[in-house]
């Protein structure tokens, strides 16, 4: 009897030990509640919500993902998040809780009900290459792209059966671009459309779902080869469209499903190799990638 009790205690202690070890050393990405991040540099972490009556207890780094534990709306209308920060200096796990101003953060997991309002895209913006450097590059751009730029201006005025898959502005266009630091040239095969995380992604045109690859969570950049959660639709007329980096937890159609224009395919997310939530949208015509802006209607 005594021996059996001894064994039971030993079993209980071993389970407690395993639990404690998992809790202490499991990677941050294994347990995610609501997660946000900022693209601002050095956002302050405060001891309480609202700046004037509290002090800073730390700093959040740019693109660092933090867990939201709660939300508070102040009388002034400001929204503050209570967050938990986990860092691993050396072998130690350092945890810190505090408050941050929500306006500096973008949620990368919580769905948002409404799309962003659409903004007009001028031809110059649509055709811009290396927009971050002012669109100027002294290096020669391959001929395909210069022809393409002319086609954008003509096609953008005509509706040719496609609809915008999501609201938001074009943050990075299609085309060849030269790396600003290393100078190597590469083709950006689609258009990156900025959108609120969780905004609905809709089919640009009706067709059959050829590929539906999900199972990716935010943070794992290699998921599905860097594409994240993605859907490819075959429109049956030689064209296909691809929708990449969609959010986890949003319903995606299965392979073989017939979809109509405007049907929901997923939500804007940040899965795969991305720095922030956006939709990477590609159009493939007869096996070749083309500029999506040549088939999408002009935004109002």
């Amino acid at each position: 009897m005594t021996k059996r009790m001894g064994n039971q205690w030993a079993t209980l202690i071993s389970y407690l030990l395993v639990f404690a070890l998992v809790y202490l050393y499991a990677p941050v990405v294994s347990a995610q509640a609501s997660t946000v991040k900022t693209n601002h540099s050095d956002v302050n972490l405060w001891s309480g919500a609202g700046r004037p009556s509290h002090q800073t207890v730390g700093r959040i780094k740019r693109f660092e993902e933090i867990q939201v534990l709660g939300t508070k709306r102040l009388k002034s209308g400001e929204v503050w998040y209570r967050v938990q920060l986990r860092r691993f200096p050396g072998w130690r796990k350092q945890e810190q809780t505090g408050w941050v101003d929500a306006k500096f953060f973008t949620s990368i997991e919580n769905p948002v009900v409404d799309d962003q309002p659409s903004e007009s895209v001028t031809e110059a913006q649509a055709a811009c290459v290396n927009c971050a450097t002012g669109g100027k590059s002294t290096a020669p751009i391959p001929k395909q792209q210069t022809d393409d730029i002319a086609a954008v201006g003509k096609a953008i005025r005509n509706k040719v059966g496609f609809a915008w898959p999501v609201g938001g502005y074009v943050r990075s266009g299609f085309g060849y671009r030269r790396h600003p630091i290393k100078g190597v040239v590469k083709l950006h095969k689609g258009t990156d459309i900025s959108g609120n995380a969780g905004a609905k992604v809709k089919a640009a045109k009706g067709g059959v779902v050829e590929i539906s690859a999900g199972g990716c969570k935010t943070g794992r950049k290699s998921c599905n080869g860097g594409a994240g959660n993605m859907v490819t639709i075959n429109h049956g007329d030689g064209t296909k469209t691809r929708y990449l980096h969609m959010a986890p937890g949003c319903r995606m159609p299965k392979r073989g499903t017939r979809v109509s224009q405007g049907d929901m395919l997923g939500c804007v997310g940040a899965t795969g190799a991305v720095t922030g939530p956006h939709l990477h949208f590609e159009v493939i015509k007869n096996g070749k990638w083309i500029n999506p802006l040549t088939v999408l209607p002009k935004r109002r």
Partner: protein
Amino acid sequence: MKLKLQFLVAGLFLTSVNAFAAEIDRSYASRIIVACVKSVEQVGRKIPNYKVVCQCIGETHYNSAVGEGIKSEAEDHIRWTTEFYETTNMKKLQRMVDRNPKWSSFDDQVVDDCMMSSNQGSKK
């Protein structure tokens, strides 16, 4: 015997979910920053606040690798990026970009974000 087995399982579990974040060598970030600054200065590219931009690029890639869920992928990411910035041979660079569109695409986004934020001011 049963207790020994349980401890063995606990030990194996621990080694598979260890805090690998600490094992990404911090020197990768420094190497990327140094190589980035050197690339800009050697070729004479006109990039405003290029040192701030390079610092941002190095830190962002490092933080991103640390935040990866799988150690091998984190190491693959940081090693590819470090080699990319340290390589000066254009043919080799082009091969690296063509064969690894995943990290190349991610780096493009990091560079764009860092350049935009440095042009707007480092603190908001």
